């Protein structure tokens, strides 16, 4: 009798917990402009309600999992340390993709431009949108488990560039043990409990009142949070742009590498001519880097110099290192192992921070360690030896008139006719400041040994201006014309499949479309590449042929990073939609396809009907 009673009480309690609503958390501490050490939130916030039922038995993410992610999960930015954006799942394949059905959808918690990369672990989807709102959703059902909505430092309205910039390019968060680690628009690292979304600790890393913000997510490697700061083209941040490492448990800063001032390499300083560090800007590493556990090396792409024009910058013919370069950094020490510059002497804001992808290929019994990248806005694909930084080859993709060639030793030659010699002197430059290539990330498929790169055909005029910089605003000092199609080209969109091997790259196929590509792409073991465009179509291409084998029109430009996961024997495809800074850049090239004026920020999750898989 007694036992029976106890049982029924237990059942009731469990039922209550099962149907309890989602948890809502926010950071308990008010962000300060400069807080030197990591701070734990107030005790009362930590000692709150028990974890939601859905995450009660959440399995911690281990170092082994990060090094060898289970194929059913999407554990980090591009699925793997190698940044390939490739999934080994194959239930959704060329034969079954046509049967995909909507499983569930969800509106993001915030309007505005976003570039989200949903992560999935242990049946939970972690979805970040702009302003660092993070939601945990049941990845199978779409039920909300918890939401974290931070209080962010406010900025004066006149700091319009910083306010716009800081909201952009919020790509990823990171999972480690039972934590969710995010980097915030106001330059903090915030660590949440993955079970309930409550803050565990946070740290103000750099001064957001100077212009610093995080726009890209961290990489967790070697017990460290490897992150890179943005906002380095905002006036107050002169002289310092950093890739940094913090202890993953304590937040203690372990090292930082300054991309525009490296006293250990005299060539770096010389490449800026007479310009001292306090008048240098840019060098922003605004795509999450790759990591090679075998050599404990992290690889990052670096953005353009500021001011954009050398006439205003004052750097003469200098190559302005390490802008537009790949940096290979030892994660243990923060020391630079090698660098390679993809675009010296940039005058046109053609940054080169985009995805660095690590590829191993066996050739004649020897494993070649490659780094491949469509490094910059001009869309040129490069292959390097990632152990040495040696240049192997390059291949043009979109129309570009800036790089005239690459010497055998890897020295990139530029078209000096396009360098303005006077204030107001205008040149038509291809690709445009919006790409060419932009944040939308390509994927490498080991199945086909091809790199699938989403691109835009575009040019714009560039003319230097002489301006007084103001707080919270950019130091670009150029006037850009509207993005226009290159002469003779009528399709803005290009998905370029580039065959990769250690000696050369070649076009496997090119898929062209009137609307521009607006999402990153995902390659899978099902032989498919998924990606989408400004016309709201999510497409699946055959990796071999470039033929579209599935297409679904959604509510807004396809955005962010489509990814895939498997639960209970079913493969899911998640597709983010909504505006990023890519979706609107060249809509004048396809006026017959009007863009929506609504924000539309959402995710759509597809799967196969039970019988099909």
């Amino acid at each position, binding site marked *: 009798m007694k036992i029976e009673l106890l049982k029924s009480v237990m059942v009731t309690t469990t039922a209550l917990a099962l149907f309890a609503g989602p948890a809502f958390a926010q950071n308990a501490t008010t962000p*300060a*402009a400069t807080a030197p050490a990591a701070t734990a939130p107030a005790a009362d916030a930590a000692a709150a309600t028990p974890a939601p039922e859905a995450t009660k038995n959440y399995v911690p993410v281990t170092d082994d999992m990060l090094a060898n992610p289970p194929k059913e999960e999407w554990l980090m930015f591009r699925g793997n340390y190698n940044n390939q954006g490739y999934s080994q799942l194959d239930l959704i394949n060329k034969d079954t993709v046509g049967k995909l059905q909507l499983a569930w959808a969800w509106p993001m918690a915030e309007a*505005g*431009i976003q570039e989200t990369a949903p992560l999935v672990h242990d049946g939970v989807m972690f979805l970040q949108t702009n302003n660092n709102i993070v939601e945990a959703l049941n990845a199978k059902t779409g039920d909300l488990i918890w939401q974290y909505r931070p209080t962010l*430092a*406010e900025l*004066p*309205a*006149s700091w*319009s*560039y910083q*306010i*716009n910039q800081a*909201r952009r390019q919020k790509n990823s968060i990171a999972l480690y043990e039972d934590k969710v680690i995010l980097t915030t628009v106001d330059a903090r690292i915030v660590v949440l409990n993955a079970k309930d979304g409550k803050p565990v600790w946070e740290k103000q890393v750099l001064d957001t*009142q100077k212009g610093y913000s995080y726009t890209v997510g961290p990489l967790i490697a070697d017990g460290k949070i490897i992150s890179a700061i943005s906002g380095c083209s905002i*006036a*107050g941040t*002169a*002289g310092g742009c950093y890739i940094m490492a913090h202890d993953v448990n304590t937040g203690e800063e372990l090292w930082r590498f300054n991309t525009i001032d490296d006293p250990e390499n005299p060539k770096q300083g010389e490449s800026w001519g*007479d310009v*001292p560090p*306090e*008048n240098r800007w840019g060098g922003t590493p605004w795509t999450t880097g790759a990591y090679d556990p075998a050599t404990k090396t992290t690889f990052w792409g670096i953005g353009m110099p500021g001011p954009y024009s050398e*006439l*205003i*910058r*004052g*750097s003469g013919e200098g190559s302005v290192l390490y802008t537009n370069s790949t940096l290979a950094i030892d994660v243990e020490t923060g020391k630079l192992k090698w660098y390679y510059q993809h675009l010296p002497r940039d005058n046109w804001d053609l940054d080169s921070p985009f995805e660095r992808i690590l590829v191993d290929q066996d050739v004649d019994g020897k494993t070649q360690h490659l780094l491949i990248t469509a490094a910059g806005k001009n869309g040129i694909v490069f292959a390097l030896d990632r152990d040495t930084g040696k240049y192997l080859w390059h291949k043009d993709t979109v129309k570009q008139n800036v790089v005239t060639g690459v010497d055998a030793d890897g020295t990139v030659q530029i078209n000096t006719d396009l360098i303005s*010699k*006077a*204030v107001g*002197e205008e040149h038509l430059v291809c690709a445009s400041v919006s790409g060419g290539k932009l944040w939308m990330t390509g994927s490498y498929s080991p199945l086909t040994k091809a790199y699938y790169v989403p691109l835009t055909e575009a040019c714009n005029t560039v*003319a230097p*201006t*002489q*301006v*007084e*910089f*103001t*707080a*919270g*605003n950019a130091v670009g*000092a*150029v*006037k*850009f*014309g*509207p993005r*226009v199609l290159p002469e003779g080209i009528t399709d803005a969109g290009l998905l370029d499949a580039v065959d990769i091997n250690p000696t050369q790259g070649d076009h496997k196929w090119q898929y062209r479309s009137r609307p521009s590509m607006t999402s990153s792409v995902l390659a899978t073991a099902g032989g498919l590449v998924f990606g989408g465009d400004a016309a709201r179509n999510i497409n699946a291409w055959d990796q071999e042929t470039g033929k579209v084998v599935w297409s679904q029109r959604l509510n807004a430009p396809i955005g962010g990073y489509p990814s895939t996961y498997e639960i209970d024997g079913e493969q899911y495809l998640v597709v983010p939609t909504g*505006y990023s800074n890519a979706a*609107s*850049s*060249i*809509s*004048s090239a396809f*006026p017959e396809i*009007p*863009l*929506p*004026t609504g924000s539309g920020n959402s995710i759509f999750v597809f799967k196969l009907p039970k019988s099909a898989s």
Partner: protein
Amino acid sequence: MPLKITHLAIVALTAALSGGVAHAGGFTADQAAAGETAYNSNCAQCHGKQLEGPDAPGLAGPDVMQNWATAGGLYDFIHVAMPPSAPGQLGDETYLNIIAYIMKFNGAQPGDEPMTADADKLAAISLPEETQAGAAAAAPATETAPAATTAEAAPAVPQAFTWGKQLPGGPTPGATAAPAATTPAVPQAFTWGKKLPTVAAPAAN
């Protein structure tokens, strides 16, 4: 090299840049009024009711005006590319009205002559010159130019290595050291144009 020069010096510098004198106008009050309506229905959703963004770049502030340089620079861009849902499809009159409103919001004063889609005339309308001159004239008496006046309260920030130096096509360096070159339209306080102590840091809000 000064970290910051005064507002008046900017007027002098930009006046020197264009070689002209700020002429109240470039657009009419009617154009700006029509432009406000057109802006609010076509642009404000992303660029903000106060031209502050943030879902698209802000359109207020001296740096924005300097970057676009002239009404022609702004027109060349927006009449092709904006708004993304109907790029280039609003019609010349509406684009000109929107430019008039953006200029007025940034402090420029309307005049008698309407802005027209004449490339040479648009290129002769200097955005920094018109907005700074208008703001300088209006600032002591009114609060009508929020974007332009906030710059005075902003903290000093580092400048380009070439700031204040003679560049081809740029203003002569002497122009930056002549704050007295423009005479305010109305009597000013004894301390007008002089450097005064300021609080150490901006409010962090």
